[in-house]
């Protein structure tokens, strides 16, 4: 069942569940930060409205910088602002930032320990009809390999707002991953959020499998868990909203009973959240793992629903992965 202690959305499994893009949480969180902290500044690269940075730009024009279509320059300017005491948020599509400007960020923000927050939008195949050029499916891999980095993937618009706000209190660069399309709102204002802590969203006393999910894919994992319960297969579903630093203790505890894992993410399976979990378990308690995500392929144009089906990432695929991993125990 849904964890009763987390005040999750009771209407989550209803037909008319509220849907919102996680980028909306970035827009409102950034404005809230702007009100609270005069040192917060924002930069955008010709995608101000699409990334929802326009709300900040309208409210705090003197603290907003339009850089045009130049993500490398945006990263460097943000580093300069951060070197001078500002908390600098840069926003673009994740394929461009932290994609195109990866080395600039590596040198001027990450190695340089400058307080730059990277908001990567249009992540995953959820970007849909724009096609694979605009679907960032490697961004977790290329940011979580950076030393001391923080990487957050919020599961819905509410958690996205909380993650955005929390990132400003972290004194290192943070990468936060947002999605374009509307996805179900899983949490409520009352759901606790803490950087570096995973949470059980679906609980069972005697789980056969632990499903670790990140981002909006958590919804598909929860639907799978509910359907598996009807098939008398009890599982736990864990929301891994912080991929770095990974909640190592929490993850080990979550797998103690189940001894089998399925990871679920809208990202290449190489180097993503599933890889992070696998690295940890390989070092501690090796367990069978099945990875849901893009399998050595780019996706294509299509609706998000069509794409998660075609690329084996929907609830049906998750349920099959659960059954596969149970056979491997």
């Amino acid at each position, binding site marked *: 069942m849904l964890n009763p202690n987390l005040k999750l959305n009771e209407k989550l499994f209803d037909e008319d569940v509220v849907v919102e893009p996680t980028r909306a949480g970035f827009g409102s969180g950034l404005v809230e930060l702007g009100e609270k902290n005069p040192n917060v*500044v924002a930069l955008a690269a010709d995608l101000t409205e699409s990334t929802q940075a326009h709300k900040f730009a309208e409210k705090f024009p*003197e*603290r907003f*910088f339009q*850089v*045009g279509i*130049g993500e*490398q*320059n*945006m*990263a*460097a*300017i*943000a*580093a*300069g*602002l*951060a*070197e*001078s*005491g*500002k908390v*600098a948020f840069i926003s673009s599509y994740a394929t461009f930032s932290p994609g195109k400007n990866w*080395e*600039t960020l590596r*040198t*001027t923000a990450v*190695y*340089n*320990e400058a307080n730059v927050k990277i908001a990567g939008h249009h992540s995953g195949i959820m970007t849909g009809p724009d096609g694979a050029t605009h679907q960032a499916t490697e961004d977790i891999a290329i940011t979580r390999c950076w030393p001391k980095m923080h990487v957050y993937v919020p599961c819905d618009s509410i958690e996205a707002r909380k993650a955005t706000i929390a990132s400003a209190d972290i004194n290192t660069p943070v990468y936060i991953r947002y999605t374009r399309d509307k996805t179900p709102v899983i949490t409520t204002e009352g759901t606790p959020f803490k950087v570096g802590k995973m949470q059980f969203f679906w609980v069972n006393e005697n789980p056969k499998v632990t499903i670790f999910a990140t981002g909006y894919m958590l919804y598909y994992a929860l639907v799978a868990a509910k359907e598996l319960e009807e098939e008398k297969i009890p599982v736990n579903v864990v929301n891994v909203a912080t991929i770095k630093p990974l909640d190592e203790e929490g993850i080990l505890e979550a797998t103690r009973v189940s001894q089998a894992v399925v990871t679920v993410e809208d990202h290449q399976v190489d180097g993503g959240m599933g890889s992070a979990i696998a690295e940890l378990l390989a070092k501690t308690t090796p367990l069978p793992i099945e990875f849901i995500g893009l399998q050595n392929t780019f996706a294509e144009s299509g609706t998000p629903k069509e794409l998660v089906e075609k690329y084996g990432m929907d609830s049906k695929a998750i349920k099959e992965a659960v059954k596969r991993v149970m056979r491997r125990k």
Partner: protein
Amino acid sequence: MLADLYEDKLKDLEKKAEEARELVISSLLEAGSGHSAGPLGMADVFTAFYFHILNHDPKNPNWEDRDRLVLSNGHICPIRYVSMAQAGYFPIEELKTLRKLNSRLQGHPHRTALPGLETTSGPLGEGIGQAIGIALAADLDKRKYYTYVITGDGELDEGNIWESVMFAGKNKINNLIMVVDRNNIQIDGFTEDIMPLEPLKDKFEAFGWHVLESDAHNIKQFVDTVNEAHAIYEKPTVIIAHSIPGKGVDFMEKDFHWHGKPPNADEAKKALDELRTLGGKIESEHK
């Protein structure tokens, strides 16, 4: 307005620049790797910055109102380290640790390793964007400091440079002064053979910048040019500083092969002899 540069002080600066060149050669010899031509070529400019132009306090490197000097072409950092040591940021003795394990003097500058560096640099084209960010922060915080950024000329091949140049031109950032080390060489050869930059002045003007030029080895002229740049407040200013790579060491001058390598012991001795005799004008006491 910078303080007047009287004859006595100018002579003092010229001596400091000469000493800086010696320290560059001895640091590179000790390190066993690193770049020779660029640091020697920028010795006069760095001396002018650290001993006349910059409003700074070596004992308080994080002073909020200090002028910022951003080095974009981080590979010429030996001259920056030398100037900083001469100015009192750290002991001259520490120059011997350049590029060695546990040193604050990383092969390319790392901001958090050594107070006073302002940025981490080495990968090219990233200094001017950071300098813009620092200059924007000055405006937001209503501070009066200047932000100077030194770039190489080969570095101007990088596309991100022009993203930044475009931004500064559009936003008329007037508390930012860029200095291009126009030494005409890059690793693979002469800039005009590898990827022509000329007409460089026209390029910057087309992007909305005010362009000044100076001899990078005439400290008086360079200081005067920076003074002139301070008087331009309707747009950003770039000073194209014409320098001789390897300046002061005859066999290194104007030779791109010295871009990325240090002298060996014999070459260093020859270089130091030449520097210490001011090109044979005085007798060396070190022979």
